[in-house]
Structure formats: C-alpha cells, structure tokens
C-alpha cells in the first residue's frame, strides 16, 4: 500500500492535491482512500491531507503514521512543530519539499535519514498562501515519484477535480502539474509501497491507568489569564510587514489600533510589530499614512533571518 501525506497551509489547495492524487491513482487501477485533516484552521495555518492506495480493499483509517511519501508544499512549515511534517518519517520515506534550498541543506538542517527530493519553488506570487497551482504542482511531482501514474491520468484527474472552475484555470493547473511531473522524471518510481504492521514483535502501547484527580485539576477550565499569547499565530504568516522607522511619522495610533490582532505595540511613540502573533494580513501596510510599512514574502524574510544568524531563528 502507498501511504502519502501532503502538508501545506490553509489556502494552498492541499485538500485538492490529495483529491487529484487520489483520483489519478484511482483512474490508474488502485483502490484509494483520501481525506483532508482540519479543525479550526484558517488561511495560512498548517493543514495536511493524506492518500492511501492499494490493489486490495483498504481497511486502515485515520492519519498516516508511517508515510512512504511526505509532500511539503511550503518549506517554512518544516520549522513549525505543530505542522507535524516529520511525523513517522523513516529511512525509506521519500520527502518532497517545495523549496529554494537544496536537498542537502534540508537533510543537514533536519538531520533527516529519509530520501529528500526538492521541487524547485516557482514563485509567481509573493504571498505563498495565494500560490495558485501549488496543490496541483505538488500532486504532479508526487505522481511521478510514485511511478504508477501516467501523465494523461494526472491530467484527467485535474480536469475531473477542478471541473467546476473556468477552463483556463484547469489548463494552467494542468501545465504546472505536468511541468512538475516532467521535472521529477529522473526520480520516477522512487517511492516504494510500505509494509503492513505485523502482529508479532510490535512495540506494545504504553497504556497507563488514568489516575483520579479532583475537579479543580480535571475540569477543562482555563483559569490562566491571557494565555492565548502562547498560540503563535505568527506561524500562519505568509507575508511579513516591516516598518521603516525613518519613514514612520510616529502618529502611533493608526497602525496599532487598526491591527485586527493587536500585534502592534507602541512604546515611546515607536510602533513595533509582535511577529509571534502577526498573521500577516497586511492591514497595517494599507492604512499607514506615510507608507512606512511594506510587506515582504515570509520565506524571503526567514532566509534573511537565517543568513543573519548562525543558528536558525524561530522568530
């Protein structure tokens, strides 16, 4: 059975990627199960989907714990623990990363024993949440790595899944997906079907006896004030606002008041952005009277951060 997990951000078409790959495998004679996994996510938040494909009935269900192929549509997610991109990756897992960096760089940074492949990022927009065909592109590259899907089945699947959209949108998605499919040709068939989990010699679950605890501990109350600051919504950001302090006229009130996340604080008439919580909505960029705030792609900002520091920064 093939077990494939696809990671990206809300808005990048990650559910669609699983559906395209699922339909392409289904049209190639496989029994398929595909599903997105989401909760209360929003645009830019980490999301993933998964696909299982086999030549017999699929009885496994739920999140894939031991993937044969992991696709990471946005390399900035690799540093986000909550995204779980690296869950269950083993030496036989193929990890396909959409990135400007090399496979060696990622292998080294993450100390990965897996087979790392790079889908060279083709940025046509600054804001990665708006990458128009990244879902289809990743599905195209993944289809080639699996080696069991012909290009025309991939095209058929895209047409089927995007059927409700404008013909020109479908054409552009097909073109992006086929380009990625062809780019991966030297690695065609790299992904191998994973094994079943045998019922002998398995790791026994570490079950515990849940102890009784009084309601002052065991009721699901949240009594600590202002703990929402611990949720780093800044990790959802695909665009980063930057204040040019020389341009800033220190009117202080406008950007800090209109920021929907209260992520701009003013001290001594100097505004500063709290990047742990700024979601990158760019409202401040639009409202700043002297045009002192500009937006740059988050991935570029992060590349500059890591060039500035010897250690990769998480801010």
């Amino acid at each position, binding site marked *: 059975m093939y077990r494939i997990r696809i990671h990206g951000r809300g808005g990048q078409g990650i559910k669609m990627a699983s559906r395209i790959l*699922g339909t392409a495998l289904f049209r190639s004679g496989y029994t*398929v199960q*595909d599903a997105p996994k989401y909760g209360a996510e929003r645009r830019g938040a980490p999301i993933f989907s998964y696909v299982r494909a086999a030549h017999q009935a699929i*009885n496994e269900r739920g*999140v894939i714990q031991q993937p044969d192929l992991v696709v990471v549509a946005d390399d900035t997610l690799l540093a986000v623990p909550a995204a779980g991109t690296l869950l269950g990756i083993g030496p036989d897992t193929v990890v396909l990363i959409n990135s400007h960096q090399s496979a060696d760089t990622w292998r080294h940074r993450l100390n990965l024993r897996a087979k790392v492949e790079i889908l060279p990022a083709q940025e046509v927009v600054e804001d990665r949440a708006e990458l128009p065909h990244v879902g289809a592109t990743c599905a195209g590259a993944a289809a080639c790595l699996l080696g069991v899907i012909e290009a025309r089945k991939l095209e058929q699947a895209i047409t089927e899944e995007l059927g409700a959209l404008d013909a020109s949108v479908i054409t552009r998605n097909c073109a992006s997906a086929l380009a990625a499919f062809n780019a991966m040709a030297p690695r065609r068939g790299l992904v191998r079907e994973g094994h079943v989990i045998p*019922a002998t010699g398995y790791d026994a679950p570490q*079950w515990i006896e849940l102890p009784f605890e009084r309601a002052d501990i065991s009721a*699901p109350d949240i*009594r*600590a004030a202002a703990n929402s600051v611990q949720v780093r919504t800044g990790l959802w950001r695909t665009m980063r606002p930057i204040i040019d302090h020389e341009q800033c006229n220190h009117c202080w009130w406008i950007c800090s008041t209109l920021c929907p996340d209260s992520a701009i604080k003013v001290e001594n008439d100097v505004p500063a952005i709290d990047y742990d919580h700024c979601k990158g909505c760019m409202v401040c960029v639009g409202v700043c009277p002297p045009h002192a705030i500009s937006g740059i792609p988050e991935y570029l900002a992060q590349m500059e951060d890591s060039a500035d520091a010897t250690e990769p920064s998480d801010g």
Partner: protein
Amino acid sequence: MQPSLLTGNAAAAWGARLARVDYVPAFPITPQTEIIETIAGWVESGDLAARMVTLESEHSMITAAGAAAATGVRVFSATSSQGLLHAMEMLYTVAGWRAPFVLVNVSRGLSAPITLEADHNDIMAARDSGFLQIHCADCQEVLDSVLIAYRLAEDPDIRLPVLVNLDGFYLSFTREPVALPAAELVQTFLPPFDARNIRFSASAPQSQAVAVLGGGPYSYFRYECHLAALNGVALYQQVAEEFAGLFGRDRCAVEDYRAQDAEIVFYMVGSFATKAREAVDRLREAGQPVGLVRPRLLRPFPAAPIAALLAGKQAVIVIDQNLSVGQGGVLHTELTCSLYGRPDAPPIVCSFIGGLGGRDISAQEFYQMVAVARDAVDAGVAPPPRLLYTAEELRETRKLQAIAMAEQVETAPSPQEQGDE
C-alpha cells in the same frame, strides 16, 4: 456501475437522491454540512425534485421532518452531535407520532470540552428514543444503509423513524470507492412511499394531534413503539437479503468477519471496525484465530444473531467509542446483559473504551487488546475496563493543564516558562 470516489457525506446525500426524497428540512453543523450543501446543489440544479427548507434549529428541523412525514411524503434530514441533542425532545416526540423518515447522524463528540471529531455518545444518547439505528463502517455502507433505512421506516409493521450513523472525519470527509446503484434498481428495491392511511390534503384538511393521557394508554402507545421496533430484526434481515440479491452487497444485521472459527473476537460499531478487520488479518497471519463481530443494526438490538456468532468463543473484546459516565461502555453493558444466562456465552467479555473524541486506535493497540484477552482467558477472570490512553497522551494533557491553570504553575515553573528564555 463503476464505483467513483465519494466522501461519506456525499454517499449519504446520494442515498437521499436515489431514494427520491420529497422534503429535506436542514440545519448545518460540522461535520454534517457537506450533506445538505450537496443536496441543496441538486435541488437548485433540478437533479432532485425535492423541497428543501433551512430551519432555525435542529429542534425545529426534526419537528418539520416529523410533521412532513406525518402527511405521507418521503423525508430526509441530517445532523450531528450537539444538533442531535438539541433536537432530543423532538426525537422522542416524532417517534411517538410514528412518523417514518430517515435521519443521518454524523457522529462527533459532545461538549464539554469541545471536539469536532468522531465519538458515539451523540448517537447513543438517542438510543432509547424510538428511532431505529443503523451504524456504518465505510462510505458504501452509508449509501446502502440510507436506502435500507427507508424500507424499514416505511414498512407498515414498523413505521418508525430511522437513524443512519457515520463517523465524522473518518467517513464524513474521507473519499473511498462507492458504487452508485442504478436508479431503476433502486426504484425496484424502494418503490414510492405507500403511505396508506397517512394522508394529508389541503383541500380536505384533518387534524392529527396527540392527547395528554394517563399511564394506561401511555404504556400502550409506548410499548407498541417497542413491539414495532422489535419487528425490525426480522424485517431488516429480509430487506438486507433482498438488497444483496439486487445489488450484490451483504448488509446483514451483524457483520461476521472471520469470526466463525475464531477463539477471540472484537465487538464494536462504526468505521474503526475496518481497522479491526485489518488487525484480524495481521493476527491471523501470526497464527492467532481472531475475528470481528459488528452489529450494523443496533436498534432494534439483534440479540439472537449476535449470541449465535459469539457462542463458544473464549473471549470477546468490546471496544466502546462512547462512555456512559458512571457505568462504562454502552456496547459492553448491552452485550453482557443480552448474553447473561446463556450456557454457550463467552466466559470473558473485556471492556475497552477507545476513540473518544476521535482519538485514533493504532494497529498495535488492537494487537495488545488480544494479548490482554488471552491473559484473561488463561487466568479465567475478565480484566477491569481500560481506557486506551498512553503515557505520552497524559504528558500532552499535562502541558495543556500547565497553560490553563495559572495557580498551579505559580508554585512550580512550567516547562513552558523554563523553555521560554
């Protein structure tokens, strides 16, 4: 017909479409919304000649469904979790009206705290209402069960509403190959609703009402519901056989997966049962005679076929994806009760609580449950009930508690604070 990839929600909507329903009262809730979105699209496009009405709550939705069914039209509706409980008063009421319609429930855990994922406490809460219940393990079964449900609901020997249950996420948002039965075959299996004496015409208005009654008449009417429901065991089997003849799929009241020659069997409902099938195959490869017994029909309770399948087994592993607080798993309670006093009943019936709030159950956990059952067989004593919960999960919960409870962390620095600087 060639199968296509459909989610459980789409399969439920297709069931309603193929059943040619007349009226769909609706109210959206995650993870059910896709069902009514799909049906709304078909009503708009003219593919389904039904009247769809969005109501202001599930309570009103079930009232509308019952009232419409009481005029003799074919009614479909769907809900989930809090929605089903919000409608609880009306579930009992419309069952008491003997209003025949089909309600799909997409199982999701109940608040508090809040989860969006699968858990059977919602559907179990409706257990005593008078609705019959069919529980599905995969997307094909969802579609098939909606069709079967209409046959049960509308049968003059039953005439009760029927709930068809599917798990949120694990089925609702999961695509699998689903064969769409040919419309003509469905027409043969499920002809138009013959409402007989249930009629309503605007030109000949009549009142249908219920009265305030004393215990004697009340007992009569309530017990008649029970007797009608009990007719469902035999009728379900008959309808399932007819279904198998027309569509080639076995939908009998109790699934038996490699259970005939098994020494130990899993007993559970819902989509995680397919994971049990997988575990059974792996355990068999390892030389362990294990099987699965899964009721599709839970109301009426098919006690006789279940007892027959479990007769002579060494042990039963009951997995409850629900929890009756202060008692334990509902399936375990009902199974032990129905087996009591039977000379051929399995001596060991283990209780495991697993999958609450959508918590996954791993392959290794299925294997380990069998190991626990084997030890119990050797010792001759059933183990105490166990929640499937690992040390790592408790560590994760501790982290959340440290964040949520400021007063506890004031005395000792939390890992969060230590790690911050």
